[in-house]
């Protein structure tokens, strides 16, 4: 297929989405903010980053009544975080993985830890592990502890459904007054032992 044909097909694929995104932004943002957000979105598109999260970020800001300057800062920050996330987790990452990884970076996870989680997940999607990791940090589990636990769970081959259950259990424990770090560590240990088939040890 020629380059011109590929370009045309790419344009046909991108154009409707870009038009729809632009229309939504145009309806909610003032002109200077719209122009700035458009520029960031165009740069992200050129860098082959997902653009929908940037548009959503701007729409979220408008819905929350934030001023234009704050919206532009937030969109630019997300764009930079997504670029960093993509560099770390690889160009084959899905838009959802890039979005979740950017959120984890914003929560304080380092690029090195993100790379560790990528390696531990293998070819499995890392969207759910990243969402659980971010939630643990938000619930006051120290970043180092939370990262180590989720990397361990990913390395043990724990499935997404089990990870979601783990997150719910830790949340319940914390809501009942448990120390966040202890709750997360205890629940993670139990899950790893179950998934490796040695969950009958009396010590657990």
């Amino acid at each position, binding site marked *: 297929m020629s380059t011109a044909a590929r370009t045309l097909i790419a344009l046909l694929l991108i154009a409707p989405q870009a038009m729809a995104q632009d229309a939504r932004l145009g309806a909610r943002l003032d002109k200077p903010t719209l122009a700035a957000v458009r520029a960031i979105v165009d740069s992200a598109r050129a860098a082959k980053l997902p653009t929908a999260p940037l548009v959503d970020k701007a729409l979220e800001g408008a819905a*929350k009544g934030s001023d234009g300057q704050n919206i532009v800062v937030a969109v630019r920050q997300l764009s930079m975080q997504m670029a960093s996330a993509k560099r770390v987790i690889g160009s084959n990452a899905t838009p959802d993985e890039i979005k979740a990884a950017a959120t984890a970076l914003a929560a304080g996870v380092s690029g090195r830890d993100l790379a560790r989680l990528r390696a531990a997940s293998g070819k499995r999607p890392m*969207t759910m592990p990243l*969402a659980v990791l971010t939630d643990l940090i938000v*619930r006051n589990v120290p970043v180092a502890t939370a990262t180590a636990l989720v990397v361990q769970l990913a390395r043990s081959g724990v499935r997404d459904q089990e990870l979601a259950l783990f997150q719910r259990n830790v949340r319940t424990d914390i809501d009942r007054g448990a120390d966040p770090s202890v709750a997360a560590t205890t629940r993670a240990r139990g899950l790893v032992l179950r998934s490796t088939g040695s969950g009958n040890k009396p010590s657990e």
Partner: protein
Amino acid sequence: MREDNEQDIERIARELRVPVAVGPALDARVMRAVRHLPRHARLGLWSRLITPRTVTVTPLVWGMLAAAVAGFAVLGAMHAKEDLRRAAKPIATAFFPSAKPPVRSQRVQFVLVAPDAKKVAVVGDFNGWDASHAGYQAQHRGGGVWSVTAPVPLGHHRYSFVVDDSVWVADPTAPRVIDYDYGMPNSAIVVQEQK
């Protein structure tokens, strides 16, 4: 003298009453002569069009005409239906029919306990953060429990509840995300295909 005249008249009348024998070639001769007459230049085509004439149609021709009329009617109806279908599509989809793949989604139930609320809506990436979106208005189920079950595309999303159009509340049962940008909390949801 008068009698003689009457006899002559009677004789002439008898002769006139005798039918004239017309030869079989007379019609052809008359038509040949008519064709050779000069036509009226201005009324030639027009007179042809307006002159009534008898057309003989066989039952077979009637059947073919009826079939042709029915065929045109069916084709017309099909075109009209297609035009209506195209008109109903959004413009972008109509211009780029295969550009946007169908978005797969799952129905997700959102629940919030808010005893004092008058109105609860769900906003997020999946509805453009639009608190007035009709499909994401929670209903009061009684006892302070509000819920709505709505389609959410597969993938990672951030969302929140908006209570009484002003208070943003993160879903207490869902993973949280750090969103300091706008100073209001959000939750995360990962929607996956059900196996």
